[in-house]
């Protein structure tokens, strides 16, 4: 049986061991564009001083290289996925849009079965994604060693 598509949250993509696992795991591995922005920002800032555009560009090239070599694809949201994100923001209580934009957008992308959300913050998604399609990076690595 093929592995389900993995939808990766920004907090998981910066985990070294998970990145290594991704590189040896063949399958559909997606970083939604909103998670790319968040993790790219983190990667650019954490790698040392980035005081000009060239330095930021260099950091982002390295980040892209890591994603490419791990076989991770950056996907935009299509119309159905964006609609799912809106539904999530409207219908899920306790996760206001202002603070949880990224969660709702990732959930919007992952709402379509059999996509699995990979996140360290399962609590943020448990009202939006069924438990069998919500895993943290370590559960994923254990499920498909």
């Amino acid at each position, binding site marked *: 049986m093929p592995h389900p598509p993995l939808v990766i949250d920004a907090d998981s993509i910066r985990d070294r*061991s998970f990145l290594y696992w991704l590189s*040896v795991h063949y399958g559909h591995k997606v970083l939604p564009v909103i998670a790319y922005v968040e993790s790219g920002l983190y990667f650019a800032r*954490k790698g040392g001083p980035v005081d000009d555009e060239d330095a930021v560009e260099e950091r982002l090239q390295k980040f892209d*290289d890591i994603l490419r*070599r*791990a076989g991770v694809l950056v996907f935009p949201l299509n119309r159905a996925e964006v609609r799912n994100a809106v539904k999530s923001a409207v219908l899920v209580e306790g996760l206001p849009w202002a603070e949880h934009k990224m969660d709702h957008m990732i959930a919007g992308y992952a709402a*379509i079965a059999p996509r699995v959300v990979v996140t360290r913050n399962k609590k943020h998604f448990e009202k939006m994604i069924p438990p069998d399609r919500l895993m943290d990076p370590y559960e994923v690595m254990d499920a498909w060693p």
Partner: protein
Amino acid sequence: MKRGAVQRNPLSPSLAYASFRVMELAGEGRDRLTNGIYFHKAMSLLHRRLGRGPSSIHLPHCWYFYGDEVIRSAMPYSVFWDHSDETLTRVGWRGSGSFSNFSGPAKYEIDSQLEEIVQEFPPGNDVLTQMIDAVYSYAPFDFQRKFRSLKGEFYDLVGSRVVFEEATPLLLRPTVSATLSSFPRNEVVFQAVTTFVPPIQATTEILLESNSGQKPAYEMLIDFWEFFCYHLRTHHRANEDAPGETLQFWEEQLDARRFDYLGLLGRKLTELQRRFPALQSSDSVSELSASWSEATSEFNELLKDPALEG
């Protein structure tokens, strides 16, 4: 067509009308849910028969893993995909399907061609293989047709309940060789795929000489086909009326797909070399293993970046 010139147009009357008519003729229920394969193939046949003349429906489509298929994101808004049954994708129509403003020769042409298609291929599961065959007859590359026949030969062996191990390797080896020899290796778009042809050919030929090597040979060919198809859909002969941004999106993915495939193949070959020592003497297999090792070392260096955790 010039790249980027195509925009998704929800009001494109002939494409919307043709999509609706296929579902009206082949679909069921209020949403006219239609078997996804039937829809893709009927639209492809219709587009082919109407040609690029004044009655063209300008179908956004590309050749991919299962043959010619419509590009979903560029179809009219009223067309939707239903995934409620995980084993079968269906296509449906959202809305009334009123085309009172659409008339004239184009409508007549669409109606009469679709009537012929539905007569030739009455909706149902038993015509799907024939439809796929009909569509494959105009695939842009001979390699695609040869690969489909090759898959058929493997399926026949499985379908007739002949256990892989007992099947005669001699039956398959010439077909595999002829198929891989027909790979369009001079096409620039397939350059990254072409580099994998020699190790795949060497490996499958060695595997097919062994009684227990046919199943891994088949799996290796299917993986290769999948990798090829990611490139195929970006080739100018394998897509039409595709939005420029869609093509760009597909092209952007190719490098990540290459690393993913290189890793998969490298790991599989390492395991197969243990089971089939003859693979160790193949130069092209050794070269591929060396590229994989190099890519792995480079990746491990990248993982030392201080921004990463764990």
